[in-house]
């Protein structure tokens, strides 16, 4: 009901800095061709009904996600993020609602709360496209899981790139080098 142009406290239903900066970066790179289209990064999200959901455990199931996210409205589609090679869940998903308002409410009420005992991240998304369900990291999962130095049991332990290196060093050490 509020008719205020600006709110007195920040809103939680804005696109994330990640989304905005991603678009901004692109604008600087191909200034000419993209200028018009990228002028307002929010525009593509004006009626967005999809959310990118991140920081899930690899073990979190569709049912669990459904259980939580249905609290903001009926879910039209749920696409699990998969490891490009193994086709196993790799810690993200897309949740599509029927209405834009449900998606905004989800940002406000569910983003930053816990699912499967992990704080999850939600970001408004212009819409799922085939191919986006796969991890873009070198080893098939999400990029962030390649170079993670901390151990995260819900997301496959250490970063995979480091893990490989550690494994190699251990093998060499074991071989008596």
């Amino acid at each position, binding site marked *: 009901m509020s*008719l205020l142009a600006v709110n*007195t406290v920040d809103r939680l239903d804005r696109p994330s800095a990640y989304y905005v900066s991603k678009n901004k970066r692109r604008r600087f790179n191909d200034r000419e061709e993209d200028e018009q289209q990228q002028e307002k990064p929010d525009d593509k999200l004006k009626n967005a009904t999809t959310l990118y959901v991140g920081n899930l455990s690899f073990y979190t199931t569709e049912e669990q996600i459904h259980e939580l996210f249905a609290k903001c409205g009926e879910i039209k589609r749920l696409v699990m993020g998969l490891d490009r090679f193994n086709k196993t869940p790799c810690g993200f998903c897309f949740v599509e609602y029927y209405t834009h308002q449900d998606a905004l*409410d989800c940002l406000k009420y569910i983003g930053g709360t816990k*699912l499967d005992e992990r704080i999850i991240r939600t970001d408004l998304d212009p819409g799922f496209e085939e191919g986006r369900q796969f991890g873009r990291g070198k080893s098939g999962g999400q990029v962030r899981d390649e170079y993670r130095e901390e151990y995260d049991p819900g997301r496959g332990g250490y970063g995979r790139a480091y893990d490989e290196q550690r494994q190699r060093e251990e093998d060499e050490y074991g071989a008596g080098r």
Partner: protein
Amino acid sequence: MAENDRRNQSYRGGRKRRYNDDDFDRRPQRRRYEEPLFVQVRRQLLTIAESAARRAEDDVQGIAKTVTDNYDDDEIRRDFVNISLDLVLEQPMKIPFIAGTVLVAHSLKPELGSEVLSKAAEALQKYIDIGAWREVKLLIRFLGILQPIYEGDGVFPLLEELFARAVDLQTASSEDLLGLELVKIIQFTIPYVMLSPASGFEAQASALLEKTDIIASTPHALVDLVNTFSPEENQEAAGQSVISLMQTQLQGEANQGWELKCLPRPWKDARDAETDEPKSFESVTKVPFPTVTVPNPVPNGARPLFPEVYLSVYANQEVDTVPAITDISSSLIRDTLVDTINLLDFNRVATAKFLIDIDCYFTPTTFVKRATPFDRMRELIGEVQPWKPEDVAVDAVFSQLFQLPASEHKLVYYHSVLTECCKIAPAAIAPSLGRAIRFLYNSLETMDLELSNRFLDWFAHHLSNFGFTWKWSEWTDDLDLPAIDPRMAFIQGALDKEIRLSFAQRIKGTLPDPYPKLITAGKEKDTPDFKYSSEMAPYSKEGQELMQLIRKKASDEEIQPVIAAIEDQAKSQGVDDPKIPSTDAFVTSLCFVGSKSLSHVLSCIERSKDRLLAIGTESQRARCQIITSVMDYWVDQPGIAINIIDKLLNYTILSPLSVLEWALSESVAAGTILSKPHVFEMISATVGKVTNRMRQIVAARGQPGLYEPQLSVIDETLARERTDMQALFKYIEDSIVSIAAGSNDEQMERGDGSGTLPEDAIIRQWGRRWLRVFRRKAAVEESFISDALANATPLGTQAPAVSGREDAADGDLDIADADAQ
């Protein structure tokens, strides 16, 4: 010039260096310590009264002084006016402080006061015209505190006018709710006028109160319907309506000379600059109260109105931690907290912060120190009883979570506010929540059934955010209760819900003995057994064959012979509807093959859609069997079962009525099914689908600029769907009425048929509680439809020759889902 440069940079701190600046000169930047004055004013205003370290009185005077000293600075003046009103509309707890600032500013510079007034009046007019009554209430409250600056009677003529409208509305219809809303505005303005430094208005206040008494004290027919406790189940706990409570409290307060001890008067120690005497606002330049017109009749806004009932989850404790309902503080604090909560739904963290900081916004003697343990409160019992800030805050959130018929926002918002509160101040909030949970748990038998289900949902969701830790041991004794006892049903339901958000083994690990036994082996299985795997099962061979065919995505031609084989076998055994065993085998196989995940079962259903649709149309009993098979296969994980049922409804493989038939007739089990939370959830969701669709059609019918022949087309659809919806509610009514009365056939056959088994009374109570919920839903939907149709374009309206409508905006119906979840 220099100042202009600075202004173009961001408000907080210096300008960020963008990376293309790298190519240009990169002078060493000196930190700037000075922030422009308008930024300072803006920040001070936005954070007014927020800090326990500053005195709010100093904030008020400091801001007023800066703004009046710099009256010529357009930016500062504009910011002051705009932000003040924004705060009034978004952070109601700050209204006395904002109004105080304006009072002091007006005394120093009346022009500034006038500017605020005219802007406020403009906003007020806008909100009155669209019927946004909460905003109207807040703006009038703000204007009310400014009473000493007006000529004559100030805000009173406006209140009188609102009252006149209320009387008109009430006289026109005894069911009127808008009039009650107007009375509420008057009631919640008077204390603030009396709080203001204006004097001599006691008589006017009393006169107005006398008038509102007739309306406020007459119980509205709907109050019982939206009560947290049905008076039928628990007369004692059933709360009073907010306005009747407030009426009594106001009269009490009038008798005590308007002490209003919880409300701050931040202007009180303002001093006159010249004489250093306490400032008297009597001598300020008086201005006329701004002109505001109240249309006749007044418009009703987008938000549907219902009576509100006062609920406290801390009622009847051995030590009072929240104001008693005889104390006006209970209503005043609750009202401003509730508005804050509902207005700030876009930032739950800010909401939680305000709730935790509640003691900053009321007089210092109102609350005990934050995080004072409950046991310490006992020792504090004295003449002046301060309250526990956490309890008062949490109480307000629960009052909204448990609002009937619907909360303003999705329920999960209130969950998230409580979660944030717990995150900000775990040690202070967690014990308060614990006591709230105990109260609600002990009220399970008599609380409105919809609300006890909201409680269940919140409880499981809340625990999922905090490692599923709860002192289960305190309910251990209740585990001996029969399964259909409301408390036992709650415990089992809560564990099921926890598992839905997590997984069985994990939940089992959080439970003390003897609770783990409630999580059976079946619940720990990711893939429930396929009953046809056992050679002993009838149709075992065909069942397995079917399953294999479905697994390898066989065509319908391959599947049909197996189905036929089952039906032939059934016929030869004298089964009267052979479609039942064949449907069972088919649907059970679908569930088993699709058991890996929701998307697996959905793609199975998608592939078999035609067959499933055909089953539904061929035989009503076979359609019921679809539900039975799904519910049986997932008997240990009912959350998955009802999710699948929900999708089958979307595919129209099931009809809403078939789901009701399954639950309230086929599987009613002498009424014991009514004790299962997931069945209530399923029926509510099914009914919700129907009412949602109905509301969409109603919205389509009511949209402006719709003409014949479309008008008639939509109207026919509406009439048809409305009949269907009524039939659905009638079915629920008829099925449950007999259970509530104990005359359901199966109930009669239980025991010796006398209806005196200990469980019989419990079953009848479940029946009454179900009835109440669905009767309310039916009434709410009917009134929604008739209200909407009253304003719709009449049938037969032809398009005007020249179509040039521009003002379509005010006809925009809000089809917000009243049954959200």
